[in-house]
């Protein structure tokens, strides 16, 4: 397809990229291009200059933070996350979720930063990043700021990014002791887009029998990932058993008005959210007990 006329530039430093983004309203960062190129084909957004950030070394590394967490460059691809021994060692689930996005071609190009900045409600990474308590590190010509993932996703294709601002990296805190994460999706076919997803992180007490604390995030129920605080409250102090989790998850999404679309009604999504939440929490408990932090067994 012939795209509209557009300028392209590949800056050599993040500073140069920020300069162009600040000085030109029509400039947009080009990361993996796995959404933006289609946006250009469909002409749903008009871009005057594509600022190719995908080869910037500063945005492409995965580093261990001093406290044992991860600092992941915005342009790290899904495939790199999937294959990273660092990611697998401390946040196994993040590699696993990334390794089940769509297909190999898309995983070789798509980036963690692009996946978040697009804020497509069907994207796989936002809910798990919210559950893991990730922080988005933003930079513009005028400075830097950190925004928790929970506050970054503002709506359907909308984020906290200001014009001229770039997501440079994502900081993922270390998993506390006795904790694990889970991720469950209702999808038709392996690695497909999901109707409903749940991501969970739980911390067990020392004995491993009771849930001390949890974070339960639902996706595709609203246009952004949402925490179910009521379910989290029911989970705290509950036995770390499937029956107790089932009981605590029976009321998941009850206070919410899930979206309805051609893929599922509001009520169907509510019921499925309960099932996905239970599966994600049960996985998280198993992961907390096992050596692997954040293992998953179910659909992605």
């Amino acid at each position, binding site marked *: 397809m012939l795209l509209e*006329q*557009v300028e*392209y530039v*590949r*800056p050599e430093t993040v500073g140069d990229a920020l300069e162009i983004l600040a000085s030109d309203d029509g400039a947009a960062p080009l990361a993996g291009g796995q959404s933006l190129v*289609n946006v250009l*084909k469909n002409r749903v957004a008009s871009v005057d200059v594509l600022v190719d950030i995908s080869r910037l070394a500063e945005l492409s590394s995965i580093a261990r933070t001093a406290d044992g967490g991860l600092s992941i460059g915005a342009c790290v691809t899904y495939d790199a996350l999937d294959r990273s021994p660092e990611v697998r060692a401390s946040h196994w689930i993040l590699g696993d979720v990334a390794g089940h996005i769509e297909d190999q*071609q898309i995983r070789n190009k798509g980036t963690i930063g692009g996946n978040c900045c697009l804020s497509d409600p069907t994207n796989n990474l936002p809910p798990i990043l919210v559950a893991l308590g990730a922080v988005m590190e933003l930079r513009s010509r005028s400075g830097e700021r950190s925004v928790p993932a929970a506050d970054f996703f503002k709506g359907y294709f909308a984020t906290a990014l200001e014009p001229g601002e770039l997501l440079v990296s994502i900081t993922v805190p270390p998993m506390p002791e006795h904790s694990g994460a889970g991720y469950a999706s209702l999808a038709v076919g392996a690695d497909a887009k999901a109707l409903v997803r749940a991501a969970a992180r739980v911390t067990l007490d020392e004995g491993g029998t009771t849930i001390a604390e949890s974070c339960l995030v639902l996706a595709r129920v609203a246009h952004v990932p949402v925490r179910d605080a009521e379910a989290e409250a029911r989970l705290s102090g509950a036995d770390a058993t499937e029956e107790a989790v089932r009981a605590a998850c029976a009321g998941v999404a009850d206070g919410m008005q899930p979206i309805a679309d051609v893929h599922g009604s509001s009520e169907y999504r509510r019921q499925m959210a309960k099932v996905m939440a239970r599966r994600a929490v049960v996985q998280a408990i198993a992961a907390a007990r096992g050596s692997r932090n954040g293992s998953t067994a179910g659909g992605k």
Partner: protein
Amino acid sequence: MGERGTSHSVTVEVNGEKVSRIVAARQLLVHFLRDTLGLTGTHIGCDTGNCGACSVIVDGKLVKSCMILAPQVDGSTIETVESLAQDGALSPLQESFHEHHGLQCGYCTPGMLMSATYLLRQNPEPTDEEIRRGIRGNVCRCTGYVNIVEAIREASRGQATGRRSAHAAAGEEV
């Protein structure tokens, strides 16, 4: 900083040959390969990143060439389906597609072959499950995939006999 503009000079190595061209920033890699370089082995199907017919290998990574702009690949090494056969002899993978009837109309085949080539480099002895995941991004409307999976599996086991390629190399009818 690289030049900013609506056209760019691009130098790439395609199937072992170095080429330089001036391209429009808006040109898709698939059109650069097919229209500018005349390498029509790479097909274009959906033009939306869904079908995989346009799959090629750029710097060792399998990608969909309809989802990349030509200026993005400056300095890269590109492999297309034309790189597989050597001196008129089909590669063992191509041979296996032929023997196991891994194609009907052939529209998806260039992309399937590149996805399978990439998969077998990463994982020389894939399970059927791994083969299916490896070609998940490639749609085939004809075969029902069974014979494609079989062709890739048998190629991975070195089961293709190479009969056809030997004949083809000798210029014989097959």
